[in-house]
Structure formats: C-alpha cells, structure tokens
C-alpha cells in the first residue's frame, strides 16, 4: 500500500522534472562562491587520493592520480580561477572527475553540495560587462536560485590545449634549432 503511494509520488516527480527542468547541474563551492557543472559532464566525485606531482606543468595543474588504473590529471580550480589556494586539503575537499575534450580531468573543489534542477527562467547568459578580455571564458551561464547566483562552468574552456609534439607531425623534415 505504502509502496504504491511512493511510486505514484515518484512518477509525479519525474513528470515534474521532465516538464520544467531543462538541465541538471552538480553544485560545488569554491571560496565564497557556488559553481556548477552539467551533470552529464561529471564522471564521478571522489575523495582526494595521493596526487602525483608532475614536474614542469602549468601552475594550476596539481598532478595526476591513479583512478583504478587510469591516469587522470588533476587541476586546482582555486588556482585556475586566481583565488587563494586552499593549502592543506580538508575532509570536505573533493575531486570532481569530468570529461573534457573527451578525456577525464579531475578538478579539486572545496566541497560538493547538491544536484539542482534548473528551468529556463533561472538561467541567464553571463552579463557582457563581466566577460573576460582574454579567451579564458570559464563561465557558460549564470543561474539564479533562491536569490543566490550559481555560475555554470564551460568545462571545455577550462584549459587551453597545448600543441603536443606528435611524431607524425615532423615528417622527416627537421628544422635547425634557433
């Protein structure tokens, strides 16, 4: 009897979700602000394991982790966004493993708190005035939920791709150095 009721409620819930929600996002905290990423881009959320430092990387790259045998680079979002670095990691810190340019990338965030269902009315594009001058546009849109602004990340812009030296690119022709 009770079970029936809950399934009914659930179905009603689902209908509510499908009718009005345009997207679901996972919210996380970074300093004083709340950010979010689209749920489809999140592969998993983990506690911070040992992070192997890789020498010579860009400053915001913390290193790489071994995720069940897979090598996943990890980025400190605070450093990426120019906020004060966290220093020691606490129990609340998490790594969100996302898919960026079809590769897994881990982002260190202060904490992960909720999954939000957003409707069109809640979403606004980033105000033009606040758009960065450079092409480092991390924010895709802003959602206002209960008087709070949540910045939704454009994860594909989170790092610029470095031209890696692929061997098939130098087809026999070696240019003298300098």
């Amino acid at each position, binding site marked *: 009897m009770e079970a029936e009721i809950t399934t009914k409620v659930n179905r009603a819930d689902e209908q509510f979700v499908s009718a009005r929600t345009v997207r679901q996002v996972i919210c996380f905290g970074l300093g004083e602000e709340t950010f979010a990423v689209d749920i489809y881009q999140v592969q998993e959320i983990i506690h911070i*394991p*040992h992070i*192997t*430092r*890789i*020498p*010579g*990387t*860009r400053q915001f*790259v913390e*290193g*790489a*982790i*071994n995720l069940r*045998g897979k*090598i*996943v*680079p990890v*980025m400190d979002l605070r450093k990426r966004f120019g906020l004060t670095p966290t220093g020691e990691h606490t129990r609340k810190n998490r790594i969100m493993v996302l898919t*960026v*340019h079809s*590769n897994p*990338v881990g982002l260190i965030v202060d904490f992960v708190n909720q999954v939000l269902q957003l409707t069109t009315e809640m979403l606004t594009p980033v105000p033009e005035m606040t758009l960065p001058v450079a092409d480092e546009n991390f924010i895709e849109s802003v959602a206002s939920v209960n008087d709070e602004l949540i910045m939704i990340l454009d994860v594909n812009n989170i*790092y610029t*791709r*470095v*031209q*890696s*030296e692929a061997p098939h690119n130098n087809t026999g022709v070696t240019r003298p*150095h300098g």
Partner: protein
Amino acid sequence: MSGDSIISSTRSDLQRTQETGQLQLVCFRLDEEDFGVDIHHVQEINRRVKVTKIPQSAAFVEGVINLRGKIVPVIDLRRRFGFPPATEQTKESRIVVVETQDVTVGMVVDEVTEVLRLSSESIKPTPEIALSEVENQYIKGVTNSPVQKDDVTGKSEHLLIVLDMDRIFTQQETRALRRVADEAGAAAQD
C-alpha cells in the same frame, strides 16, 4: 660522440624496446614521487659523496664530484623539478650517474628504489593537460607505480613518471654542464 651517433643510438634503443616490448627502468624517489629512467642511460649509482660547489655555475648545477679521476657535474633534481629542497640528508640518498646527450651527469635523488622491468605499452602518455610547451618535454610518460603499494589492498595509488633522458637537458644546459666539467677538470689538474 657526434650528434649523429646520438640519434642512431637512440634509434637502436627504440628498436630494442620495440622488438622486445620491454623496458628496464631504474626507479628513484624524490619527495614521495617515483621516477624511472631507462637503464641504458645509467652508468652507475653511488652513495652520496661530497659535492664540490662551483661558484658562478648555472643554478641547476649543484657542483661537481670526482668520479675515479673524472670530474662529473651534479644536478639537484628536486630543484630542477621545482620540488622543495630536501630537509635532511638520509642514508638512502644517492647520486645516479647517467650518460645522456653527450654528457655524464650525476643526479641527486632521495633514494633508489628498484630496477623495474615493464612492457613499454604500460607507459601511458602524459595527460595532455599536464603538458607544457617546453618545460616538461622530458617526460616520456606515466605508469602505475608498482613501487609504492598499499600494504592492505596490494594496489598502488601512486604513479611512476618515466623520464626521457634524451630530452632532459636543453642544448644550453648540456653546454653549461660540459663547461662546468671542463673547467673543474682543468682546475683539478693545476
């Protein structure tokens, strides 16, 4: 050795690896992280001896050692990789003497852990995001470290960074290293 012979020796190295699919790496540790270099580049591993400081030498050169009459420049890999300097010298500390890019160089490491045999396939390319334009082209790849295993699960959380010794120094750096060795050598003979 001329430039050509370096290339050909690298090629034969590569061929050898491709044929057998096996690599032998000398593994060492720097500030909790594990690194590996191809055993073909390693000439010897020494206990830490006194390193003679050379005034006015390049910042990454720690000094020189006298290796059975041969003057060999020594670099501090921790400094080179931007790791914090070692707080104390332990009994485990070693100097790994490598031959690469026409120079013989000693590298100060925290400890040498083991010689590892693994298939070249198990070395994965460095994640793209962790690459930089010039600075770390000397990283050949990353592999799951069999060195530091969890006692309970038997699994390793750590990664092993495989260094490409043919790229570890820039041309400028090899020149600087050679100069240090030559000058110190000449001074020793006087």
